[in-house]
């Protein structure tokens, strides 16, 4: 029962205690089957063991946790209440700090490998963040801009990775030769996926794209002659710096180290890979920023807003949707090619549904359609589990909880403001 005079209603302690006891009661019901009782393997047969002290501890933490949480929320509401009175209705003014944060991040990303040149783990994690930023931007075109809920995006990531792996191991193509071909192939798969789903809405579209992702993964696992099946494809050729491979000095030709007179260190390759993905990411950002201003970009957003109205204005909605799928898939393909080049070995385990779910979480968390939001969300969702590496068993538990908390805290995504892509000059907002 939400009482309407809550705003002025001073919350009494007894109310808080009653509420906390309710939570404790529920905690007991939740805790008994999972924490109170558990089955232990005793010589081939299961035996139920009890650990009531743990249940007690759990209920107590829930009780006091609830009290603390309520207290914090009350303070927060009180503070916000006072703050709100002083500020007029916040008109959607462009927030300058957002732009500065963007440039700051860009500067930081340029300087990062040099600052952490000895710490290979940080550079490698940053490379993973950038891969997920690329994937996030690709999916952002499909889900954020065109509003097509795609749950099988990992399929295009796999198409990119496997095309590079196969082309480089079978035909000796290098990274730069494969990139455009893999992008085109992924775009083709994008259209292949888009075509049957044209008439589908929302969740029906989601399940079909999910099915498409699973079909690709199962084919990769089973078609051993083509994809190496579960063994995957190994010894994929690493990208070289315009022909200078990253290898310890050896007699067959100059290497990166020998050419630049550096003493060989394995970090060179990691740093080169980082800058390679950074360049790819910046190009992608430029590409999408321009596309948003072009008719095709505006058409995507129009289709997301109201498909029927688009038809009434003479827009061929089918082509618009297919172009969104194709461009999104192409970017996924590029990220796949880079992933294969970086890891040197790919196998179907890397292209499971939970990858699609993570990339979707990045787009939704970042704020639908917001390029910058994807960058922040990608860094969050990649770095958070890495931070948890030390307490290994609780890592994924906290990751799941974090996803819930962030969504509850920011349902519209971190950056939920939309920058108009066409502005009439001489007219203040």
């Amino acid at each position, binding site marked *: 029962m939400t009482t309407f005079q809550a705003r002025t209603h001073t919350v009494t302690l007894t109310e808080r205690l009653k509420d906390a006891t309710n939570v404790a009661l529920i905690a007991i019901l*939740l805790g008994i*089957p999972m924490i109170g009782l558990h089955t232990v393997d005793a010589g081939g047969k299961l035996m139920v063991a009890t650990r009531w002290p743990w249940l007690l501890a759990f209920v107590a933490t829930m009780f006091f946790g609830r009290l603390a949480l309520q207290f914090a929320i009350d303070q927060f509401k009180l503070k916000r209440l006072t703050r709100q009175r002083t500020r007029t209705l916040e008109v959607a003014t462009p927030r300058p700090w957002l732009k500065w944060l963007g440039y700051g991040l860009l500067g930081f990303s340029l300087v990062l490998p040099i600052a952490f040149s000895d710490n290979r783990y940080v550079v490698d994690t940053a490379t993973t963040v950038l891969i997920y930023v690329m994937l996030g931007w690709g999916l952002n075109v499909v889900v954020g801009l065109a509003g097509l809920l795609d749950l099988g995006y990992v399929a295009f990531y796999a198409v990119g990775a496997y095309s590079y792996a196969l082309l480089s191991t079978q035909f000796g193509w290098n990274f730069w030769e494969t990139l455009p071909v893999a992008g085109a192939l992924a775009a083709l798969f994008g259209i292949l996926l888009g075509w049957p789903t044209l008439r589908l809405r929302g969740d029906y579209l989601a399940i*079909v794209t999910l099915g498409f992702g699973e079909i690709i993964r199962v084919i990769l696992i089973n078609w051993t002659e083509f994809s190496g099946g579960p063994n995957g494809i190994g010894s994929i050729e690493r990208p070289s710096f315009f022909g200078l491979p990253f290898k310890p000095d050896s007699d067959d030709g100059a290497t990166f180290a020998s050419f630049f007179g550096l003493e060989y260190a394995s970090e060179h390759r990691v740093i080169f890979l980082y800058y390679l993905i950074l360049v790819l990411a910046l190009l992608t950002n430029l590409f999408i920023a321009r596309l948003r201003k072009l008719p095709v970009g505006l058409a995507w957003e129009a289709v997301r807003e109201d498909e029927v109205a688009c038809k009434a204005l003479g827009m061929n909605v089918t082509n618009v949707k297919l172009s969104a799928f194709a461009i999104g898939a192409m970017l996924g393909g590029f990220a796949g090619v880079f992933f294969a080049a970086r890891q040197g070995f790919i196998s179907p385990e890397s292209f499971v549904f939970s990858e699609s779910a993570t990339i979707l*979480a990045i787009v939704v968390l970042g704020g639908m359609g917001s390029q910058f939001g994807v960058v922040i969300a990608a860094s969050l969702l990649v770095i958070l589990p890495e931070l948890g590496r030390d307490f290994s068993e*609780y890592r994924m538990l906290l990751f799941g909880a974090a996803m819930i908390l962030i969504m*509850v805290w920011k349902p519209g995504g971190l950056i939920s403001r939309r920058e108009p892509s066409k502005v009439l000059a001489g007219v203040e907002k």
Partner: protein
Amino acid sequence: MGQFIQQLINGLTLGSVYGLIALGYTMVYGIIGMINFAHGDIYMVAAIISVTVITLLAALGISAVPLALMVTLLVVMAFTAVYGWSVERVAYRPLRTAPRLAPLISAIGMSIFLQNMVQLTQGARVKPIADMMPGQFNLFTFDGFTVFLSYTQLMIIVVTVVLLAIFTYIITRTSFGRQQRACEQDQTMTALLGVNVDRTISLTFMLGAALAAIAGVMVTIYYGVVDFAIGFVAGLKAFTAAVLGGIGSLPGAVLGGLIIGMLESFWSAYYSPEYKDVAGFALLILVLMFRPSGLLGRPEVEKV
């Protein structure tokens, strides 16, 4: 010929299991229009609790099968309903007015959380139970292949049919059912008419969880072994079944489940189990291309 009938029975049972979980999916989707990715894991939680309850009952010497089964069902349904309520209260209620995709992501987060919680509290090892309902009917032998229908298989099929009838009755005939359908059409209007929307949705989640609990108990008894990772694959299959049958329609969920169960059984028996998942999803895509709102789903009329 014998193998065909045997696969028919196996397919019927597997389909009923998918149908049971899909029922929970459709009920939850039907009311707030959201894919509850954590539903598969609520089914897994139910299965784990049923192992604890069955082992405890066996230890206490309650061996009469019907009694043990009834007690297990009731206890597991009760606890799982509380889990259903808590999942909704923590992950979905705060996001009720949020953009459509927000609850989807918090559902995925909740699914990861539930899996790891169970792995931490109940251990990662596989949890078996003694066969609670041994014995079967040997129907007939056809050139050396004896076709059998075990008691558990019969129970699962019967339970599915009974539950479908009960829940269709609840949704269509009772006032609670009307409130649910009203919430699905327009939550704000329903609230204005004096229906406590929050309570209706919470109750629906608890019912959905209870349904998942029954499926969890059935699976634990049928397959005899359970671990913390079964929720994901089962959830995916049940979601496919619910959409194939037309999301939101209860008979559709069971029909979708049966079709996928049958398809998988016959495909892996006569062709090869390698591509049985591909067959399932391919069938779904084909059906949705011609009937965009599923087999029994209400065609969504686009009001121009």
